[in-house]
């Protein structure tokens, strides 16, 4: 039998969601959502709050469990099997709205924990890798500090560096700038733009439409747990097909 990852052909999507549905009790929060993301593709997911966009990307690395449909990452289907969950998570980095750094560890320890524990990296190598990514996000001088000693923007950049230390092929961003003060949003977005330019496959849930315009290959609009439309940014912003999309864009772009 061939290994499941070898069934992936060039040009196949690295992430493929097919008719994914999810319920919280009686309430259906995802309705048959399908989405394909190719290698190096940047997808921005937007929509009003409660539209299921966070839930959708959290299903991709199994922070939420979908009940129907298929989620395939690099040819491997996400199932209850711990091994498949683990294999998929190793390929996916995630950045959260509230950073979720480990407050009892220094910045450097936050970054090296994953590589030393799950990738059996030697401490010296992990330190070197961590410093490399801290330089990338431009805060190498904060390595010995604790997360709560940093500003929100710096914390979020540490969180991005922490994910990158796992050297994932895909990065998920769950409203990465929503908890930040306005003057810190730019530094985080700049980091994300650089990451996009380096060819990382990214799915970003965000309300930052400027970011979507700059880096997205595809913008997905969700409402009430449904994917309403998806289009490249110029088309999405210039000529939205659906009434709900237009209403949403009117609201967030007007001021």
């Amino acid at each position, binding site marked *: 039998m061939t290994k499941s990852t070898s069934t992936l052909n060039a040009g196949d999507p690295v992430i493929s969601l097919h008719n994914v549905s999810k319920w919280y009790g009686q309430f259906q929060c995802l309705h048959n959502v399908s989405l394909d993301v190719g290698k190096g593709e940047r997808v921005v997911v937007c929509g009003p709050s409660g539209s299921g966009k966070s839930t959708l990307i959290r299903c991709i*690395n*199994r*922070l939420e469990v979908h009940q129907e449909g298929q989620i395939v990452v690099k040819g491997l289907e996400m199932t209850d099997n711990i091994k498949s969950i*683990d294999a998929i*998570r*190793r390929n*996916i*980095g*995630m950045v*959260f709205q*509230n950073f*979720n*750094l*480990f*407050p*009892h560890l220094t910045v450097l320890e936050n970054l090296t*924990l*994953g590589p030393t*524990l*799950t990738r059996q990296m030697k401490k010296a190598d992990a330190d070197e890798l961590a410093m490399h990514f801290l330089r990338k996000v431009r805060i190498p001088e904060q390595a010995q500090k*604790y997360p709560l000693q940093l500003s929100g923007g710096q914390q979020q950049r540490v*969180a991005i560096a*922490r*994910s990158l230390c*796992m050297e994932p092929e895909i990065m998920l961003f769950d409203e990465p700038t929503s908890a930040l003060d306005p003057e810190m949003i730019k530094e985080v977005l700049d980091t994300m733009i650089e990451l996009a330019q380096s060819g990382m496959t990214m799915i970003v849930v965000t309300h930052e439409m400027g970011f979507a315009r700059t880096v997205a290959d595809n913008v997905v609009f969700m409402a009430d747990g449904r994917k309403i439309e998806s289009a490249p940014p110029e088309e999405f912003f210039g000529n939205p097909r659906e009434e709900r999309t237009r209403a949403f864009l009117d609201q967030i772009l007007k001021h």
Partner: protein
Amino acid sequence: MTTASPQFPAALPAYDPLARISAGDWLKKNLFGSVWQGLLTLITAAIFLRFAWFVLDWGVINAVWYTSDPDVCRAAAGACWAVIVEKHRPMLFGLYPYDEHWRLVLMMAIYLVTIVVSLMPRNWNLRLLVPLWVIAVVSIGVLMFGGVLGLRYVPTSEWGGLPLTMLLFTGTVLFGMPVAVLLALGRRSPLPVARGVSVVFIEALRGVPLITILFVAVNVFPLFLPAGVEVNKLLRITIGIAIFFACYQAEVIRGGLQAIPRGQYEAAASLSLTYWQTTRRIILPQALRICLPAITNHIIAAMKNTSFVIIIGLFDILTATTAVMQDPLWRKFYVEAYLFVAGVYLFFGYALSLYARKVEGWIASGRI
């Protein structure tokens, strides 16, 4: 307009944070602010002075400090501290053979050095602590039991006094804490069996008095063992106290676990850490820091619970003192003897709470 309007009251006098307050002002403000307050101050001071005078008069001025003749004490109006000098050895060492008491002194010295070294953060590396504890446990075992190196064998039934209290207490904490952590984790586990076992265990044992558990451990438990198999009584009672301790401590730790935000678990999951990696490296270090004050509370309680060994006829420091005070010549001075025991408990209890406060400081300053 010269008077302040109700909407705009006159400004308060400027507040000067550096202003010194005179002693007279302080007294007036804090102790004699009003007639009623002044009266209360005077009454409280009178009661306090009366008590302080009693302590001084009874405990120091008229006290007998050193005599081997109880009649001297009887003739005195004050405390008879001589009883402690006279009886300290059976009180501190219980039934342990008199000529072997030096072994217990040595044991306590080793014990205290080991504990003090282990509690200092700069010594927290396994390369030091593992050999230290191996040496300490072996040498304490040799000293207490004997039977080798020309030392006379002393069975656990003759152990007693302060060393017994120390051993029971240490055994309780060392065995009880890991069990408490496992029970707390089990109670929050998604696995129904682990959760069920933990809930039943905690609720059943927390619901009965400690004395019941010890009675079961001592009298009922042996009935379930196959004939010929015997588990040492001292070990059984230590496990009994430890499990009781663990059930309470588990609920404290569960409180700490519940305070950890879900995002911490999610971040760990996204780094594909396993359950045990997440628990050990992310969750427990934070949870235990949060509930440290309550953990300390139960540890101090556990120290005093060791006195329950009275029910299996072992003589810890409290029971040993009670036994010693049966001596008809000295029994009149039991108050002094118990005050001494209280002092010993207070010393260790207060040392524990001072240490815990220190640890809280270290945590707050990010040192640990």
